[in-house]
């Protein structure tokens, strides 16, 4: 074998140049204090997202081992209230390829750094629709679906089922309000109506009182086919199903959940990804794990195909028609050239099974049915990618 390698190096200078290509990636995480929730049944894993990136690294390394490409992943955690931009600046001095697990203000601060101008940043944590529209940044791609992609997926399902009468209960956190706004926008887009709304502002401990409180709250919503809930921090929504005044399915943050990824996705080879993740993490793979995995794999795929680790070369390749990521969702994933969002199917998952996957049949588009989810080119006000 050693003889072979020596021979290869002697005969082929290009191969020599390719061998030894270093691809360092930095995972930069803004730690946040999670607000309290009524139930502690499902605490957010401490390694959420990060382990997805580690799985992507393992996948990249295997491919790299056959090509002489050497991948590394370093994790930097910024404590709550810490200076994210300073941490990003320090990270950019070591690599131009950053995975950002942080909320919108921190993402914008990092993207605005002069050092980040030629860098390639991936948002794997913020579903903010504005980041894919007027607040987009040229150097920032998004592998997590936006709120609007998720709400569009759910409305396609509601329309397919002809559940045209909708009601909505939303929490008061900004994330809840953002998802509620997306649900309203999607309902309008697909010609559905959210006829009644309630805001969750009860201070009661629902583990004692769910059976008494939820019927009263939902009684005020009038007639509807489907009860939507926007509770993105998973505070109260788990107490809605089976406690509502009318017997109605629940969807949104609870019940039938539109999401980038869920442990129940098993088709299209997904069972293999789930089992590799479980071996690595000792837990199930969640949406932000998937987004981080997809970001690291996007880098790997672009490095493999271009033979370069240069951020600008990779960015151009990722945004080109040539890029395709096999993302275990049944069709190739690619980036929207107008706002840097990873185009992807959205599973509609219940806790025990996949109910459907959007785009649903019949929702057509002139270029890609995947672009029926989220901001299509004419709707996005992003100009940074022109």
């Amino acid at each position: 074998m050693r003889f072979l390698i020596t021979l290869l190096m002697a005969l082929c200078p290009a191969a020599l140049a390719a061998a030894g290509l270093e691809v360092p990636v930095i995972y930069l995480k803004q730690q946040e204090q999670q607000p309290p929730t009524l139930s502690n049944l499902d605490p957010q894993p401490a390694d959420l997202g990060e382990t997805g990136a580690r799985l992507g690294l393992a996948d990249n390394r295997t491919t790299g081992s056959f090509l002489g490409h050497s991948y590394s992943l370093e994790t930097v955690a910024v404590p709550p209230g810490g200076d994210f931009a300073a941490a990003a600046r320090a990270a950019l001095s070591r690599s131009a390829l950053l995975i950002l697990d942080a909320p919108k203000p921190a993402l914008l601060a990092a993207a605005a750094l002069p050092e980040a101008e030629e860098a390639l940043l991936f948002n794997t944590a913020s579903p903010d629709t504005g980041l894919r529209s007027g607040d987009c940044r040229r150097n920032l791609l998004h592998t997590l679906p936006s709120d609007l992609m998720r709400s569009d997926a759910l409305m396609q399902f509601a329309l397919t089922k002809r559940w045209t009468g909708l009601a909505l209960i939303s929490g008061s956190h900004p994330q809840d309000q953002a998802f509620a706004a997306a649900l309203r926008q999607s309902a309008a887009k697909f010609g559905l109506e959210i006829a009644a709304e309630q805001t969750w502002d009860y201070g009661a401990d629902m583990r004692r009182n769910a059976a008494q409180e939820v019927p009263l709250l939902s009684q005020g919503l009038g007639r509807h086919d489907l009860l939507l809930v926007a509770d993105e921090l998973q505070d109260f929504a788990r107490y809605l199903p089976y406690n509502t005044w009318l017997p109605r399915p629940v969807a949104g943050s609870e019940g039938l959940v539109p999401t980038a990824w869920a442990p129940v996705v098993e088709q299209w080879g997904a069972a293999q990804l789930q089992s590799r993740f479980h071996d690595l993490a000792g837990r199930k793979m969640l949406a932000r794990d998937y987004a981080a995995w997809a970001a690291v794999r996007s880098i790997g795929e672009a490095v493999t195909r271009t033979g370069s680790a240069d951020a600008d070369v990779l960015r151009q390749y990722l945004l080109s028609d040539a890029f395709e990521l096999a993302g275990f969702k049944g069709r190739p994933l690619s980036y929207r050239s107008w706002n840097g969002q990873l185009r992807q199917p959205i599973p509609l998952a219940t806790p025990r099974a996949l109910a459907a996957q959007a785009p649903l049949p019949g929702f057509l588009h002139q270029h890609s049915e995947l672009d029926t989810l989220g901001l299509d080119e004419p709707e996005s006000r992003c100009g940074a990618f022109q």
Partner: protein
Amino acid sequence: MTFSAKPLAALALPALLATAPLDAQEIWVTNEKDDTISVIDIATLEVVRTIATGERPRGITFSKDFSRVYVCASDSDTVQVLDAATGEILHELPSGEDPEQFVLHPDGRHLYIANEDDAVTTVVDTETRKVVAQINVGIEPEGMAVSPDGRIAITTSETTNMAHWIDTETQQLFANTLVDARPRHAEFTAGGSALWVSSEIGGTITVFDTATQTETGKIAFAVKGVHPDRVQPVGFAFTEDEKTAFVALGPSNHVAVVNAETLEVEDYILVGRRVWHMAFSPDKSLLFTTNGVSGDVTVIDTAKRQALKSIKVGRFPWGAALRP
């Protein structure tokens, strides 16, 4: 077999189920989510027997003399060896973890097995029942092929997107070639001088020159009324003269007919849902495709290039093999 089976069935059901008529030609289909094999009689195009296997049976192939059948029982982490006449499980072979697909070397003795969960290709001696070698390959190895002269074995890895070329003398890799996303199946053709590799998500078949391991051509597919993303080539097979290939196109629910010389697609045949793998009748006049989602097998008249019949089998039929 001229007697009527029905009156006898009540009396002699176990015997009838267990033993195949000696002169019957059959297609054996593994049902991934039923843990069974459905046996189709080629003369009647009916399922005549159902054989229990280990968990999640996928790859299936017969020994050279057709006395035995090898089945990848993926979730049982083993390759099962069945008596082809009785369907009885004789013994198991050490296969490595999660065997998905395999190929029998022309020596009739060595199985090259893709271990999907383990990024390994395992070589097993079917006589000594021992592992001869394990070769590290890319993530999610799946497609397996061996050259007619037996010198080269191929593993394709679905997530690494490569064809890995194994020297069967040294059991070491001597080349790794990139293909489009999610390579699923590989076959040598033209006397072993060319290798075809299908890429499910890439939507293409890449053709390699075996001697130099360089790409010489690429086949793309376009099914009318189906978005290109859903045209996903998986299994394929060549006619006797190797002038024509039939390619299963997954969730597009079509099989493509490809001119193997010009690499042009000549026809598309509508079959069942999520068409996966296939096997020919002995004279290659009929082609049997496994349709995973619809749980059936489509029988194609290869001369007319038309679907003749759908045969209901078990849940999620995956592999198919001919017992002549």
